[in-house]
């Protein structure tokens, strides 16, 4: 197994092609939950876990069921089904097994189904023809990248509460401009690794 490639994939997915800042996915959640550090951390943990598991599930289904049957044109429908089913069952299992964890993270779980990054990862994996381990690495990297973005943003927005912002820009507009500045910083990572 080529560990070098896996490591490169993780770094590339988390820093160079960061989902939030260079591919602009998951913005609804990014702006929605980055108001407080605590929720940002909770979201990041749930998000990364769901991302990796759904990437693995989708890979197995795609490789062993959809490719042999030659139905890969149905991948959008199948992937969204897998994710919705997995999130729903994780929700139910968590509620029964560990209610305390459920009260902490359950609310994020419900939000995740409609998140585009979770769906984008299996779509990209199947499009690029990644192997199982590569898909997992890509999932981990994407999750870490999203967590990084969310935590940076949350720490800035907590400080922003005290700032005197012109009235029309309060709330979302200023968050967008801050995200733009961070994105500008992230363009500095491009060219770090060439795959």
């Amino acid at each position, binding site marked *: 197994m080529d560990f070098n490639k896996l490591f490169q994939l993780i770094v590339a997915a988390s820093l160079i092609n960061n989902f939030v*800042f260079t591919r*602009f996915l998951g*913005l609804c959640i990014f702006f929605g939950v980055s108001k407080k550090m605590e929720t940002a951390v909770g979201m990041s943990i749930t998000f990364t876990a769901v991302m990796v598991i759904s990437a693995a599930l989708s890979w197995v289904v795609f490789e062993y069921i959809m490719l042999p049957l030659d139905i890969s044109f149905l991948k959008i429908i199948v992937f969204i089904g897998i994710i919705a089913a997995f999130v729903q069952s994780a929700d139910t299992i968590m509620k029964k097994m560990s209610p305390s964890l459920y009260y902490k993270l359950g609310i994020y779980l419900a939000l995740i189904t409609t998140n585009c990054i979770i769906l984008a990862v299996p779509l990209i994996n199947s499009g690029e023809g990644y192997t199982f381990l590569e898909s997992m690495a890509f999932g981990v990297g994407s999750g870490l990248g999203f967590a990084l973005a969310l935590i940076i943003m949350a720490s800035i927005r907590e400080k922003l509460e005290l700032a005197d912002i012109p009235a029309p820009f309060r709330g979302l507009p200023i968050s967008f401009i801050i*995200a*733009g500045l961070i994105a500008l910083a992230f363009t500095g990572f491009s060219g770090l690794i060439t795959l």
Partner: protein
Amino acid sequence: MAHTHKSNWELIKNGIFSENTIFRMAISLCPSIAVTNSLKNGFFMGVSVIFVQTMVNLTVSLIRNFINPKIRIPIFMLVIAGYVSLIDMSMAAFARPVYKQIGLYIQLIVAFASIFARAEVFAVKNKIVPSIADGLGMGIGFFFAMIIISFFRELLGKGALWGVPIVSGNPLLIMILPAGGFFAVGLLMGFFNWVDIKMAERKAAQETTM
């Protein structure tokens, strides 16, 4: 749970202005930045969303009496995914160069909160014609936002529109970089808020003078 009493025209306007997906509701933001680096991409994205939104509202409204409320979410998802696959494949066949750039985002229309929300909030409770009007309004509102953002970004970032150069000289490269998308949306949102505040002030001033 009430049926709507608005006329179809009011429903369309509602989607374009007072409940504009991007600038007012601030949902489905991802493509507003990702595909708006040129007018052409923004245009195709907008058209796809108009189509999907209208057809989903139409279909959900048609089958609303047969859906068991307990399994409505998977059913909506299936309906949406069906239409998205349709437009995804047609674009791949007929608009190859554009599809290469925005294909991933077309596929991700499935995960659009706005489309799902309209099915859940509106189409499932209303008759077919109002549902179509609502879908059309929402779609056009989104289209409108895409066009505004991509118009500014392409004009400032490349000095061109629809790939045709208009202004010579050094364009502001930053506007077509990822960061520029965030700036453009932030500034436009700020502008719309400013207009809102001014309008409210004017209204208040009129009421006091009366």
